[in-house]
């Protein structure tokens, strides 16, 4: 599903990560500053590795030796950022529709309905992002990423900006997403409890290196 073997120098910090996983929910675990976001940005194509390869679903999207770098917009990945990043000039319905329009996909009413229902955002469709709570914004961002029909979903601390109450509000949606949406995901977090609930496989990152890899039990 996902194969990563990259090197990247970012100022003083050097990232050297290598793993391969067929897992449906890969948990990327590490303290802040361990290089999690840089790694995810490289999988997304927003950052270019200095050396190495990234293979998503059998397609090589980065191979520095062969001069391959597929730009982010052609990777068909979904990316949910910690800060949602909804488009402020579009309402919720238009935000949800954005990826489908950009990828020139035909409207898919049943998928739209299913995801709106799954994330419980039907009542928000006419609203502007400015009028949403943090939790609502994150659910819309999830829906927006899913509706672009990605082959891999990247979630970078999607609960990081929320307080405890809100986290508990969103977590069940993420579990449902993992079980029902049929999209493999990479879930980034520094919270072991979160990952125990969501991930099926763990990649542990420490100071830019993969220190352990395996089932959820590596977290203990």
């Amino acid at each position, binding site marked *: 599903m996902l194969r990563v073997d990259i090197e990247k120098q970012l100022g003083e910090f050097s990232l050297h990560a290598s793993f391969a996983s067929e897992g449906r929910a890969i948990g990327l675990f590490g303290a802040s500053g361990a290089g999690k976001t840089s790694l995810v940005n490289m999988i997304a*194509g927003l950052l270019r590795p200095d050396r190495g390869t990234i293979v998503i679903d059998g397609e090589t999207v980065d191979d520095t030796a062969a001069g391959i770098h597929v730009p982010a917009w052609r990777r068909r*990945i*979904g990316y949910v950022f910690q800060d949602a*990043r909804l488009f*402020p000039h579009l309402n919720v319905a238009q935000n949800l529709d*954005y*990826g489908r329009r950009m990828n020139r996909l035909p409207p898919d009413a049943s998928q739209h309905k299913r995801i709106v229902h799954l994330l419980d955002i039907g009542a928000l469709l006419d609203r*502007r992002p400015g009028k949403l709570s943090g939790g609502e914004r994150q659910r819309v961002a999830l829906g927006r990423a899913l509706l672009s029909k990605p082959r891999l979903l990247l979630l970078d601390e999607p609960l990081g900006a929320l307080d405890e109450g809100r986290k508990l509000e969103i977590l069940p949606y993420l579990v449902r997403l993992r079980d029902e949406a049929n999209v493999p995901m990479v879930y980034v977090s520094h919270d072991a409890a979160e990952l125990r609930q969501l991930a099926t496989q763990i990649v542990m990152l420490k100071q830019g290196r993969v220190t352990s890899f395996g089932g959820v039990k590596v977290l203990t």
Partner: protein
Amino acid sequence: MSDISPAEWTAILLSLRVAIIATLVATPFGIALAWLLARRDFWGKSLLDAVVHLPLVLPPVVTGYLLLLTFGRRGLVGGFLADHLGIVFSFRWTGAALACGVMAFPLLVRPMRLSIEAIDRRLEQAAETLGAAPWKVFFTVTLPLALPGVLAGMVLGFAKAIGEFGATITFVSNIPGETQTISSAIYSLIQTPDGDAAAGRLVIVSIVLALGALIAAEWFARRATARLHGN
């Protein structure tokens, strides 16, 4: 105001036409340049920035004279355009529009550039991950978010263009019905005995136009900002 003479109307309508065309033609260039200055680093960037601002600080008569040398019938660019495309600037209203466009350009670009600089680039990254090619990101995210600045720049540029005098009269002279804008009409009238009343009327017209443009710029900016932040 009802006793505005046909000659004065001609000058008013010509000014409007010149300023509107100057603004509309300058806007795409202004947006492109604003984006370039806001988002790209390249060799000679500060020089380009300085050249764009030059008309703001040069004596207008110098800008007009340089335009005459470049875009006049025997000028390097003017000769080429006249011979190959049939576009003539010298002593035509199109030349007035060119002069006004050049003079208004720095004022037009500045708000556009500031509003592009203010956009959160992470929104553009988000658009990219959703499958938007760079040009689509520009038209669906960058430009709509920069809209308040684009409109403010257009209105400000228009206000400057409609009041331009020095470069215009140097480049295309002061021909009634062809290149005589409100400003050059006022200039002629105050040098004519008994021209005071007519000059006064045109002065009022230009104050009304300038004030209207400033109020419109403010209104556009506020509306667009409200559109961008919340409901």
